[in-house]
């Protein structure tokens, strides 16, 4: 009787140990699966964030390239300078267009027009030789002014005229900077959100091992039976 109880107790304890070992093994496998899931999630989150960063970086770079081609690059600046020089020549020539300005009297054929433009009162009644001389000098003066105005237009087209390079190029950089800063801001914000995602979703879940209820019962029963077996054995022998 005592021996049977002892054997049963030993069997129950063994059963409990086996159940615990199985549960531990299962928990370990679950933890391994959790770790694998976490790695996959991390990789997925990293890839998603990398795509976002790449997209924003591409937009940022595209803005930079666009500004370079449209405003800041050598070809763009040369083209802008020529256009502005042309515009300024007209604007400085008393608001006329560049073509009109260039066509202003500068030859003997248009002497009469020139002499009317700047002559003093009382000079119109002079002899022909004087009037011709006056008109020629007036036209020379107009030609001189035209050349200087053209030079002024050329000079200011490189500088701070309305669309001069001194204004247009910095404005181009400023406008590109607004977009680049915006995209950089988005990148920083996205990276911060990615940090939280990694923190919350990228860590493996911890599987806690707890002794199975059956194992506890068997362990208890085994202990009891073993005790009984020892008791009976002690009485008999």
């Amino acid at each position, binding site marked *: 009787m005592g021996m049977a109880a002892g054997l049963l107790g030993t069997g129950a304890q063994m059963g409990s140990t086996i159940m615990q070992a199985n549960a531990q093994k299962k*928990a370990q496998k*679950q*933890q391994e*699966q*959790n770790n694998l*899931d976490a790695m996959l999630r991390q990789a997925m989150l990293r890839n998603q964030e990398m795509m976002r960063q790449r997209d924003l970086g591409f937009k940022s770079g595209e803005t930079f390239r666009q500004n370079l081609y449209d405003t800041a690059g050598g070809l763009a600046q040369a083209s802008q300078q020529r256009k502005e020089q042309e515009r*300024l020549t007209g*604007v*400085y020539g*008393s608001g006329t267009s560049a073509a009109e300005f260039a066509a202003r009297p500068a030859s003997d054929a248009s002497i009469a027009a020139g002499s009317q433009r*700047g*002559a*003093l*009162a*009382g*000079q119109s009644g*002079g*002899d022909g030789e*004087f009037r011709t*001389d*006056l008109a020629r*000098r*007036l036209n020379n*003066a*107009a030609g*001189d*002014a035209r050349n*200087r*105005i053209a030079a*002024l237009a050329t000079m*200011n087209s490189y500088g*701070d*005229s*309305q*669309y*001069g390079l001194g*204004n247009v190029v910095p*404005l181009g950089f*400023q*406008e590109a900077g*607004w977009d680049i*800063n*915006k995209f950089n*801001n*988005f990148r920083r*914000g*996205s990276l*911060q*959100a990615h940090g*939280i*995602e990694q*923190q*919350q*979703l990228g*860590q493996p*879940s*911890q*599987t*806690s091992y*707890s002794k199975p209820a059956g194992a506890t019962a068997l362990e208890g029963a085994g202990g009891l039976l073993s005790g009984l077996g020892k008791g009976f054995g002690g009485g008999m022998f």
Partner: protein
Amino acid sequence: MGFGGGGGSSANDMSAMFSIMQAQQARDEENRRQQRIQAGRDLIDRQFDLFKKNPAFFDRYRYGITDYYRPQIDSQYSNAKRNLTFQLADAGTLRSTAAADATADLANQNDMNLASMNAKADSAVGDLRNQIASNKDTAINQLMSTEDPSIAANTALNSIATVQLAKPDLSPLGALFQQAAIGGANAVKSWQQGGGGAGGLGFGGNESAGPGGGSMGKSQGSFIG
């Protein structure tokens, strides 16, 4: 943290749900923040694009400047011609080579003064454009710091009000025309006034080709600031 089974406890499930929600909330909030910034930028762009679509705004500014200075230049040119006429007539040289030279010189000065005025007005418009860009820059910086489109819109509106209140520097013109000294007495007087300058038609004064500098040609004073 814990989700995906394992212990299978309800506490773990709750914790997993909470983590998912937090991560989702962080991403959603970031997306909303970016949308707010983009909405603010769109609003600012729309407000400031009004300037691009309205070149008359800048033309009015330019014409305001030239309309203010042009009568002064015309008046001074007219006075200089009249004075020159009197002096030439006094000296009996109204129809001489010297008279033709002096007349042509005044006409040249007039052309250059007008060009300088136009250059100054055009540069002032460039400054106005820079001021507007600077206002836009302020609005955008404020948007990025606040990330609140409504505040950015108010800044944009206030900036536009500021631009419309901007006024050009309309200081009066100095003497722009220097005419030739005609006759002995006038020549001496001119020499005394000019500190022994380079004769009647001498190029004294502060000649400058730049729009922001002094006057063009033989002016005595400065042109537009």
